[in-house]
């Protein structure tokens, strides 16, 4: 095996091992505490609206195939929305960070749209893009893209001017500036933007999948809600939470592998 690929493989292996260890140590304990708290609530309220965690877990184990199918459909939508948001948001954020005119022109627009309740635009998207997946994905993009653009723009703006001067002194071309300076500098911001985006998109599934959907965890929760089947509903909610944990851990692993130790808040210096 070549030295490079061996190093990459060792890195991945260490990342996975580290991830499992951390999960076992921290997140599993967190999950158990959450279940205990839930059980306490269930006992205190003594209502069928809040089922016991054990009952919910047993339900999840009973219907794993159905839940996986719904999760898969939702994940595809989430991934498409995040991928497209990255493709548009990162270049737009960089442009606003490096170009003062673009920043002056676009920032007020961004600040205006950012705090708006994006869900309110759902009827417009339904009208424009139909009831299928397109309108659902566009709604999610609409919700997360501004956060992404602002994170990247701020990341570019935080690069010390002396770094640009260093690149200028070595006669770096525009492409080299992006490769050696701007992209490595904003990687942590991209990851933090992604982390926020994942949380928001998972939460928005409930709205995005509440119409003309047959598969999707948002649809699954809403359908259970309308049937007043609270065990099924809480099963769906729990699964969304677990998907979140999985995605966040995957993102942490990716960050650990791609962001150099020097700028990576998740890698401690020895």
């Amino acid at each position, binding site marked *: 095996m070549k030295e490079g690929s061996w190093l990459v493989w060792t890195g991945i292996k260490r990342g996975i091992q580290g991830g499992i260890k951390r999960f076992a140590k921290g997140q599993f304990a967190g999950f158990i505490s959450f279940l205990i708290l839930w059980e306490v609530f269930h006992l205190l309220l003594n209502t069928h609206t809040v089922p016991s965690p054990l009952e919910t877990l047993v339900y999840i184990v009973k219907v794993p195939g159905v839940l996986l199918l719904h999760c898969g459909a939702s994940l595809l939508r989430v991934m498409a929305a995040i991928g497209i948001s990255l493709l548009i948001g990162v270049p737009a954020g960089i442009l606003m960070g490096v170009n003062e005119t673009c920043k002056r022109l676009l920032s007020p627009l961004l600040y205006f749209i950012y705090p708006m309740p994006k869900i309110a635009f759902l009827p417009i998207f339904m009208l424009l893009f139909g009831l299928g997946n397109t309108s659902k994905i566009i709604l999610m993009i609409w919700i997360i893209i501004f956060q992404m653009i602002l994170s990247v723009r701020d990341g570019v703006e935080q690069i010390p001017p002396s770094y640009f001067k260093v690149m200028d002194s070595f*006669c770096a071309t525009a492409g080299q500036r992006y490769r050696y300076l701007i992209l*490595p500098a904003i990687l942590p911001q991209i990851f933090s933007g992604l982390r926020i985006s994942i949380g928001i998109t998972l939460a928005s599934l409930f709205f995005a999948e509440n119409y003309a959907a047959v598969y999707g965890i948002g649809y699954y929760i809403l359908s259970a809600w309308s049937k007043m089947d609270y065990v099924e509903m809480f099963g769906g909610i729990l699964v969304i939470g677990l998907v979140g944990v999985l995605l966040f851990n995957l993102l942490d692993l990716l960050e650990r592998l791609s962001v150099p130790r*020097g700028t990576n808040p998740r890698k401690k210096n020895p």
Partner: protein
Amino acid sequence: MKKDFISMDQVSVDFDRQQVLKGVNLTLEQGISYALIGKSGSGKTTILNLVAGFLKPDEGTVSIHGVKVQRPRRETAFLFQELGLLPWQTVAEAVAMPLKLRGQKKGIDMLVAELLHKLGLEKHGNKYPQELSGGEQQRVALARTLIGEPDLILMDEPTSALDATTKEELQGLIRWEQQKRQATLLFVTHDVEEAVILGQYILILKEDGRIVQLENPYYFTENAREQLGFYEECIKLRGMIKMEKDV
């Protein structure tokens, strides 16, 4: 007779309607080291920025080898006061960067290893800047400056953030590398002692834009700091900086 390498002709620079440099004339020869000293705000760093090509004069011309400086040139290297070491680059990556930016593909690792060894950084190749001491960081920045074999090295207060011992060590290193490479060195400093240690010529920038050029009698002297008269020379220079008109 050596030819003029850098020449500044009637250079004036304004910042926000405030004149920073007024009619500056300066001629520097190749392979010599020059220390540029003067009062704060007299425009020393502006001169470095003009020669580096970061700044264009409002009046007059700056030329290197008779060619007007319009933008940074590959043969000029700049050691910044803030160093500008990118935190995501290891020492080896930082030192290799100038060569990669030139499009060089072969022999980079060997050149980097050689230079790191010369500057005593061979054990730090895989470390990140924040894992190094101030003196080590300064040496990395110096290595990055030297790797491209520049014919002109510009330095803005190269040792200002260092303790006395590290400062002396780095000054020795800069002096050795400049003499060995026969590169022209133009550096700005507030430290008159540093000017006498590193500068073959000392340029005092006056407030009226004139530059007084003095030959440094201690430049070729071993252990200059221990020589009789070294500190008197420093005191004389400090006095000349303070004076409006030179004597």
